[in-house]
């Protein structure tokens, strides 16, 4: 069992605090994705788990053992870097063998066995004699993963491992990583700024912003029920439209572009709220519609069109079939799927929980 527990973990450089009180439990065999914009503290958090950065305050346990102050080699972890960090003067084989040769008492035959096995899994058996500069980006990435695999660590750490690959290769490696996690039952902490990677890879995702954990949950849950406006706009593409509204006690929302009633289920609304609407929760109305706006632009992206409509001062994106997409300048009616939209406090940005 390789459960990783972060308790009130903080990181400061001098007076500047970059990670604030992170509390996070990564269960055994879980694929936890730390996601957030650059500078949000996700990489620093990962590096604290690795032992490459000191933990300023808080506690870290791996598999029940307190490793807050332990050096990296005593944490039983392996890490894959964004730059791959392969030793350029060693062959792929030697890159994978180096750590084991220098730090374990495994026999050469055992080490060879592990390398062959990992190479088999990663389809790099034919590349073992090559130096990093003779390998493509994707192949280097596989060797870097192989170097982590042969260690048989309790926890695998990935720091933006796919960022240096082109889009097509990134897609394929994403599938590979998912397969490895499933087949080998690895415990993984994975850092990325790419919300698609987070959504597709994670058993759970942990959203970070400005050094603070915003929300932790399974990807669909975070997508459907974002805890605040930050998470709401970060996850999902095109992003969720946020429409500031005035609310009355009856649950009727007033906006420059429309007025609509939402079911409250007994929740009291503050007077100022933000209505969050994803592109798939709004459609063009055949009748007058709940709201009327003017089309700003229309982007054809193959099977569908993304249409941006101005509602007063705000903008909202609508997913539409290509054939139905209106032209810029047209006045259109919009219908919201009021059962699915969500509300946030205008002041704090926190989600308002509606029972109903």
């Amino acid at each position, binding site marked *: 069992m390789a459960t990783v527990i972060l308790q009130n973990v903080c990181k400061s450089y001098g007076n500047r605090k970059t990670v604030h009180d992170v509390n996070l439990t990564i269960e055994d065999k879980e694929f936890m994705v730390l996601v957030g914009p650059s500078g949000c503290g996700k990489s620093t958090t990962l590096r604290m788990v690795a032992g490459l950065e000191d933990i300023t305050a808080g506690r870290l346990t791996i598999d029940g053992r307190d490793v807050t102050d332990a050096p990296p*080699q005593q944490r039983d972890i392996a890490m894959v870097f964004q730059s791959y960090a392969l*030793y350029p003067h060693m062959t792929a084989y030697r890159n994978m063998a180096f750590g084991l040769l220098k730090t374990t008492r495994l026999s050469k035959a055992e080490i060879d066995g592990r390398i062959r096995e990992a190479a088999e899994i990663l389809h790099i058996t034919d590349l073992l004699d090559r130096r990093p500069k003779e390998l493509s980006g994707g192949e280097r990435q596989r060797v870097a993963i192989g170097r982590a695999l042969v*260690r048989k660590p309790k926890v695998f750490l990935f720091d933006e491992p796919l960022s240096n690959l082109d889009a097509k290769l990134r897609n394929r490696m994403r599938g590979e990583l998912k397969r490895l996690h499933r087949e080998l039952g690895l415990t993984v902490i994975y850092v990325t700024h790419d919300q698609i990677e987070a959504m597709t890879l994670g058993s759970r995702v942990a959203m970070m912003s400005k050094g603070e954990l915003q929300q932790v949950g399974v990807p669909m849950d975070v997508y459907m029920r974002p805890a605040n406006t930050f998470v709401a706009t970060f996850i999902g593409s095109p992003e969720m439209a946020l429409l500031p509204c005035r609310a009355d006690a009856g649950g009727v929302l007033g906006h420059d572009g429309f007025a609509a009633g939402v079911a409250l289920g007994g929740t009291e609304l503050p007077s100022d709220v933000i209505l969050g609407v994803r592109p798939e929760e709004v459609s063009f109305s055949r009748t007058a519609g709940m709201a009327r706006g003017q089309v700003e632009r229309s982007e054809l992206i193959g099977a569908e069109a993304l249409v941006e409509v101005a509602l007063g001062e705000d903008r909202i994106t609508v997913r539409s079939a290509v054939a139905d997409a209106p032209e810029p300048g047209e006045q259109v009616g919009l219908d919201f799927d009021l059962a699915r939209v969500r509300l946030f406090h205008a002041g704090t940005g926190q989600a308002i929980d509606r029972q109903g």
Partner: protein
Amino acid sequence: MSLNVARARRNEALLAYAFLFPSLVFLAVFTYWPILRSIWFSLHDVVLGDPEIFWLGAENYLRLLDDGLFWKVFANTALYTLITIPLAILVALLLAVALDSKLRGIGLYRSAFFYPVMIPSVAAGMVWVFLYAPGYGPINEALTFLGLPRLDWLYSSKWALPAIMLMSIWKYSGYFMLILLAALKLVPSDLYEAARLDGVSAPQRLIHITVPLISPTLYFVIVIGLLHSYQIFDYVYVMTQGGPADATNVLTFYIYQNGFQYQDIGYASTLANTLLVFVLGLIGLVSVTLGRRVHYLGER
């Protein structure tokens, strides 16, 4: 079209030669001509100030083989090089690794260790003559303080050469340190992090990661070091004049003695040519043996 390209190319080549011309003239007058001249001298009996010159053929070279002092001087130079250069590079490497950090005030330490390089060698030699002075020199005072016997240093045929080696290591290592430090800065830090996660110890990281990755620079430093050490003259001239009993006599000093003290330009040229061939051979040997083991970082 192709005619124009050919003409453009020819013009470009002419321009390049025009730029090279001044330095080629300089090299020819001050390097290649003296080399040719010294080959010619070595085949003749040439005495400084004497216009009469006799053809000797290979006689000067045969004399060199029989010259016991030449072999002693040759051995001194080889020993000096074999000990000074590896030790200076080792000290420089350790200093560079220690100084490759982001500690506050690190620039001050770097300057401190580079400082010996900036002292003119004659001045440095004078300082060390004082340091080594048997009666009042601080080094002997320190030995006494530690309960160790005092040494005659530059006045002892046993300790004079080691004394010059020690001082040379002090002088060279700051220079080598600066070059190696620049190379260390180019090694990506994530390689060290990967090794740390693997549990590879600091000495192992130095041997298996740092050294191979800065090997092009190490190779450069070795070649420069060999060139410098075979040309050592100033310290010997200032500190010992080759003594006592030729214990610190080295090739360039022996050349100087023959040419300008004994006025035997022919034999001095013979020695100089022998030194040149030997150093070229040595660098060839180094490039064949070490040069093959150099790893270039290449594209990452």
